[in-house]
């Protein structure tokens, strides 16, 4: 029986070349390439999850502007395993972004982008770009209100590109406004164009890994010399190399197993992101936000000075992309060990801190007005009638509370005004309200007689309580305020 199987295997192997096909997995690699080297495999694993879950979702998803939202509801709420699959696709995307970031940081810190692996790095950077493109287009396929408005935001950003901006915006919108063509185009890009390109580049990336070998862990004071590196690497492999499978690959398998379990657990217990309202552009009470992996860019656009915003919007991604692409061209030899390249450690730390801080800001978005701000409570106002009460009501109705915080209520767009009376005099308050200021509209023209006095009366009660006295805003009576 075994003999028959062996004969069949030999025939198949001869005709299909299976041994030749899987032989790269058996290539010899440096034996010290251990746990730090698992992120590339983890990224590939996440990509495979994306392909598999994406294909499954496509069985039910209809890329039509009129039906996509309903099919997503069907997938999430009705189809067996649909919610889990959506979650798998979402957390798989998140894992892919995280793993590609970790892989890039490890490669950079280990100096593995240096000779002869410059193009391996370059193809990796392009794969990072495509991955972020997949993330963005994927968010849009969640065809709800946020997705539809995110298309508009993307079109507006593209519109800032000199000369071809308007045309680029139309390409993104699929016309001059959101409509039937918008979603189907993003679907084609997300499902066919980008994955096709990514398959090609992943193949190229892996081919280059095979061609130049897995980089050995760096050793301090052992710089890369292009003249001698290849011979030294060959010597190292001859001396202490191990077959990738299974001697080294088992660690990749362990980590990717952990990753798959983590993604599955998140998909099962946390579930996919909730769908917003239907993608009706006539509903104007929308508040579009990007998915978490692009929140840092949302934060950046909010925090940069307005006068240079357009340049940053266009130039920043190009500059970062070019820097990353050309890193190995500028710095292709010399020390690889991070201990001899403090600037490399500083760059990675700076990037992590910068993206982390911007992400935090983007997530909290203090620059966004709080449209859900409720009128201040009686306890906070400290009056139930009179100018202070009226002023507090106006403070809400005029939208002041959307941007200013008072005792924990309101928005954070402008300065907190809980104790504003300690800082500004009555005259200063009047000037500020009437004329506006940096990032504050002038309310003078829209205030009716008496409204300004009421507003000022209310704000004058916003004082820090003096020890031993009752809180000013609790004792402020309408009559005393009225006299001011």
């Amino acid at each position, binding site marked *: 029986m075994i003999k028959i199987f062996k004969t069949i295997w030999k025939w198949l192997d001869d005709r299909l070349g299976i041994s030749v096909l899987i032989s790269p997995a058996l290539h010899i690699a440096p034996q010290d390439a251990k746990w730090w080297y698992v992120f590339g495999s983890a990224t590939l694993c996440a990509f495979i999850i994306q392909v598999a879950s994406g294909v499954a979702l496509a069985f039910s998803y209809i890329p039509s502007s*009129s039906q996509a939202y309903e099919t997503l509801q069907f997938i999430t709420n009705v189809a067996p395993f649909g919610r889990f699959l959506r979650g798998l696709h979402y957390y798989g995307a998140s894992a892919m972004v995280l793993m590609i970031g970790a892989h890039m940081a490890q490669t950079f810190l280990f100096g593995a982008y240096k000779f002869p692996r410059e193009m391996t790095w370059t193809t990796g950077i392009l794969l990072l770009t495509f991955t972020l493109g997949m993330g963005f287009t994927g968010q849009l396929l969640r065809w709800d209100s946020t997705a539809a408005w995110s298309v508009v*935001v993307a*079109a*507006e950003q593209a519109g*800032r590109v000199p000369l071809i901006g308007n045309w680029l915006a139309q390409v993104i919108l699929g016309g001059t*406004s959101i409509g*039937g063509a918008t979603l189907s185009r993003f679907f084609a890009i997300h499902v066919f164009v980008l994955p096709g390109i990514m398959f090609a580049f992943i193949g190229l990336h892996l081919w280059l890994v095979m061609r130049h070998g897995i980089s050995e862990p760096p050793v301090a004071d052992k710089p890369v010399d292009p003249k001698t590196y290849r011979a030294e690497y060959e010597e190292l492999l001859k001396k202490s190399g191990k077959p990738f499978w299974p001697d080294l690959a088992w660690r990749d398998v362990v980590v990717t197993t952990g990753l798959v379990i983590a993604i599955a657990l998140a998909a099962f217990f946390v579930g996919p992101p909730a769908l917003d309202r239907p993608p009706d552009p*006539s509903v104007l009470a*929308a508040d579009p936000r990007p998915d978490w992996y692009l929140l840092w860019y949302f934060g950046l656009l909010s925090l940069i000075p307005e006068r240079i915003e357009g340049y940053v919007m266009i130039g920043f991604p190009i500059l970062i992309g070019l820097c990353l692409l050309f890193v190995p061209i500028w710095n292709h030899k010399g020390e690889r060990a991070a201990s001899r390249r403090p600037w490399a450690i500083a760059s990675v730390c700076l990037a992590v801190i910068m993206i982390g801080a911007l992400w935090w800001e983007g997530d909290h978005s203090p620059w966004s007005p709080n449209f859900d701000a409720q009128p201040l409570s009686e306890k906070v106002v400290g009056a139930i009638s009179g100018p202070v009460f009226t002023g507090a009501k106006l403070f809400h109705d005029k939208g002041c509370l959307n941007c200013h915080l008072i005792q924990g209520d309101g928005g954070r767009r402008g300065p907190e005004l809980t104790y504003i009376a300690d800082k500004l005099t009555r005259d200063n308050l009047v000037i500020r309200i009437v004329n506006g200021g940096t990032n504050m509209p002038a*309310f003078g023209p829209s205030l009716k007689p008496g409204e300004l006095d009421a507003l000022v009366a209310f704000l004058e009660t916003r004082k820090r309580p003096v020890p031993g006295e009752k809180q000013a805003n609790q004792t402020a009576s309408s009559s005393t305020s009225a006299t001011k």
Partner: protein
Amino acid sequence: MNTSLTESSTAPSAETPEEISRRRFVEKLSIGLIGLCSAIVGVPLVGFILAPFFRKPPENWVTIGKPDDFELGKTVAVTVTDPSPLPWAGVTAKSGVWLRRVSADNFIAFSANCTHLGCPVRWLPDADLFMCPCHGGVYYSDGKVAAGPPPLPLFRYDVRVENGEVQMKQAIVPISTAL
């Protein structure tokens, strides 16, 4: 098997000028034919994908109601439906604009898109302001920038009263091309 393939792909050492010339000819012929095939398939393909973006923006007038449907001085959100949407556009054929009746026959239609990044601005009637939820752009009631990052005032669409109907030019997403 591999050996024979390698052998067959290696040029014989002693070739006549005619053979070399023939090889160059068939090489060029093959490359030319591949280019022709690519053009036959590629030109319509690229044209199909890109042609819609070279179309002129729609100039249709769309009826949005009768003048008396709108209270004098009030700013309200109105829904404008694309008169000729793709059949599968669904709710995306609709657009929202802010309309104000200034006088009996005079209306202003503001685009709902913030000129900063296109987010939908909201009208705060008591404050007489438009406010954007994304980055806090604020506009006065005439659409001029009051605060925040918007580089331009709110765009306005053409509105007219014709045959007892309020009509406006089809709402397209205005793109702020200013750096």
